[in-house]
């Protein structure tokens, strides 16, 4: 994949322009390896262009294709069945033809420190939502606003949201932490040392009870099903039969005779009889 991609990106840079958006669509039904190398290639060479990825079938690595699109500020489309190709591709091209807004940025009130994800906002296409999670250092006062600005077709756009009525919600913390973990993992893909990333992810995941590359859930049954002093029940389970195979139980016959045993027993008895005869003869003499 690397030669194709770097070739495409080089051609793009030759025709770069301030006023147009450049878009690359990468379609594959093959498997893609060398994730980190390719991601840093995209990161370093994409410039102002956008990368859209399309994976067909089960071979392409969905994680990589999604990440590549994210690093390329585009989107990832997955086509599971060949009959979906037309629908998915026409939906993708419709999106590509209708970018709504670019150069998006968010302004928070000046006296509040924030940590918001994603840090680099994606372009918006038609019918697309924008979801941002942020942690604020203090509770915002009334009249404080957050302002989103962007550039639409030939004009700038801005919208302000009042922060004075935050609704309490239980899962928000986890959502924010999950976004932060994802961006920390991206830093690892961009080449940051794993030890640094691991420490930060671990801290965050443990604090918010989240699954991550370095944490997992362990389920412990509260009710004791089998006391440790009791034996396990063992039972033979039938194997699953392959489709189209018919297995028939066949009774096996008895396939041994006692012939050899009889011969040995007979010889032993005869020897014993002869021995007895000899002994009694000796005594009578």
């Amino acid at each position, binding site marked *: 994949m690397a030669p194709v991609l770097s070739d495409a990106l080089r051609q793009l840079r030759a025709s770069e322009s301030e006023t147009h958006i450049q878009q690359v669509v990468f379609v594959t039904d093959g498997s893609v390896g060398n994730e980190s190398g390719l991601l840093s290639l995209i990161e370093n060479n994409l410039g102002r262009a956008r990368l859209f990825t399309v994976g067909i079938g089960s071979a392409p690595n969905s994680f990589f294709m999604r990440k590549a699109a994210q690093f390329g500020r585009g989107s990832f489309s997955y086509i599971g069945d060949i009959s979906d190709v037309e629908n998915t591709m026409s939906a993708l091209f419709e999106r590509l033809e209708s970018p709504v807004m670019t150069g998006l940025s968010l302004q928070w009130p000046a006296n509040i420190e924030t940590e918001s994800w994603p840090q680099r906002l994606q372009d918006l296409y038609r019918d697309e939502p924008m979801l941002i999670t942020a942690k604020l250092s203090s509770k915002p006062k009334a009249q404080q606003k957050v302002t989103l600005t962007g550039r639409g077709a030939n004009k700038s756009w801005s919208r302000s949201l009042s922060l004075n009525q935050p609704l309490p919600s239980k899962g928000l913390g986890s959502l924010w932490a999950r976004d932060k973990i994802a961006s920390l993992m991206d830093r690892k893909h961009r080449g940051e040392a794993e030890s640094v990333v691991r420490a930060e992810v671990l801290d965050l995941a443990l604090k918010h009870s989240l699954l991550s590359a370095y944490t997992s859930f362990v389920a412990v049954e509260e009710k004791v099903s089998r006391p440790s002093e009791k034996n396990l029940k063992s039972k033979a389970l039938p194997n699953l039969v392959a489709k189209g195979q018919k297995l*028939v139980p066949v009774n096996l016959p008895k396939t041994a005779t006692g012939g050899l045993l009889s011969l040995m027993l007979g010889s032993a008895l005869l020897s014993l009889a002869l021995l007895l005869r000899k002994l009694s003869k000796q005594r009578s003499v």
Partner: protein
Amino acid sequence: MRLSSMGLLLSFTLFAAGIWQLASGLVIYTKAELAQIWIEDAWELSLQSGKLGHKPWFWADTWPVAKLDFGASPDAGKIFYVLAGSAGNSLAFGPGHLAASVLPGERGSLMIAAHRDTHFRGLDQLELGQPIRVQSVSGQWARYRYRDHQIWDSRQGPPLLDLEVDQLLLVTCYPFDELVAGGPLRWIGRAVKE
């Protein structure tokens, strides 16, 4: 005097029991060896007529269904005439054909059983790839090559087998050097069709 007559009686009883045991053992092996000679004649008749059901002797309750050859070339090596049915009445005189399996010459799995200490003695010496041939009543030979074996414990119930596979399964008791009859283990050798 009384003591010696008791000793005489005892030694006579032992002698009689010994003769009886020896004889019954010998009968088993003699039957197994000699019967094959008469069965060979019955098989020749079956081949000539092209039909099964020729009894080797007039009071027999079984008849030959195949000729089994463990040698490489025709009429070289160990030859057995396989009888219909795999109960004791057949196995006393020759290897028996399991009625659950296909008839020789048909597609599918052919199963033949015999006593481990008569006709199938030394079956564990079969070598990988050794040719085994089976002649059906049409006179045609099917060629198989020995592949592998499994030990089945019949206390688990009957084995589940795929009888649609073209193969020859040879069944006998295991272990081969066990003296007492009636054990639960079976040796199932598999030869695949060429």
